[in-house]
């Protein structure tokens, strides 16, 4: 059975995604790291679907649809922010910060 290896690869991939979100300041790269985390979870779903039934694979389908919607809206937001600030660095997105 490949359940153990799959779950451990998925844990590493999820951690790398979280690390990317914490490390980077470029909004687009952070977005890609979120996609990486979604993929790590998808891998978990598929691995568990092998022993718990096809429901897991159906759920991956839904996660992919949500990821596609999220990418479209998120990149449109990044485009709108870039038009205001001429930058996609999160350091410049401080309108809600005091002073």
């Amino acid at each position: 059975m490949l359940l153990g290896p799959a779950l451990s690869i998925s844990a590493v991939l999820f951690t790398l995604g979280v690390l990317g979100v914490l490390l980077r300041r470029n909004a687009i790269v952070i977005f890609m790291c979120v996609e990486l985390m979604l993929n790590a979870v998808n891998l978990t779903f598929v691995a568990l679907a092998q022993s718990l039934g096809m429901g897991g694979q159906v759920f991956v389908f839904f996660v992919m649809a949500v990821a596609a919607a999220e990418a479209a809206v998120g990149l449109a937001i990044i485009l709108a922010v870039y038009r205001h600030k001429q930058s996609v660095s999160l350091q410049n997105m401080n309108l809600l910060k005091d002073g």
Partner: protein
Amino acid sequence: MTSTIFWSFGILAMLSALLCITRKNPVASALWLVVTLFSIAALFVLLDAQFLAVLQVLVYAGAIMVLFLFVIMLLNLGRPGPSDIKGPLGLGVAVLLGAALLLLLQPLSRTTLPSAITLPPGSVPALQQQQGIVGSVANPLFGAYLIPFEITSVLLLAAIVGAVVLAKRKL
């Protein structure tokens, strides 16, 4: 044999994910992420999810990553500039938190499922033999999960409208 192939694709996925989060250039990051997505597609094939592997390549590597690269191109972010990776303090905090998370997640891979809820080994390939590879995903999707499937279409419509409204200067 299967285990060796599985681990080699898994290590490829992890290495390219590491390169993805450490490359300074967003285009290089995006291309390393494509390598990760392809390796995950290979892992899906080895886990009896061939249909999802095809979807992974089509939707993720094909559509979503092209969208990312298109936005990088549109904003002209590929040119060399100062690094956006945080300094030593940020790096230390991030690595510490990452190590803590990995420590919490890694024991999950040693869990054993109770035999009362698991299917007998080889039952998913048997189902795929019987209903077809696409059919075995489609039957639950258009049966038990029909209402969530229909709601997904509303979600996609909302995303399309939202993206157009946000990206257009003047409607």
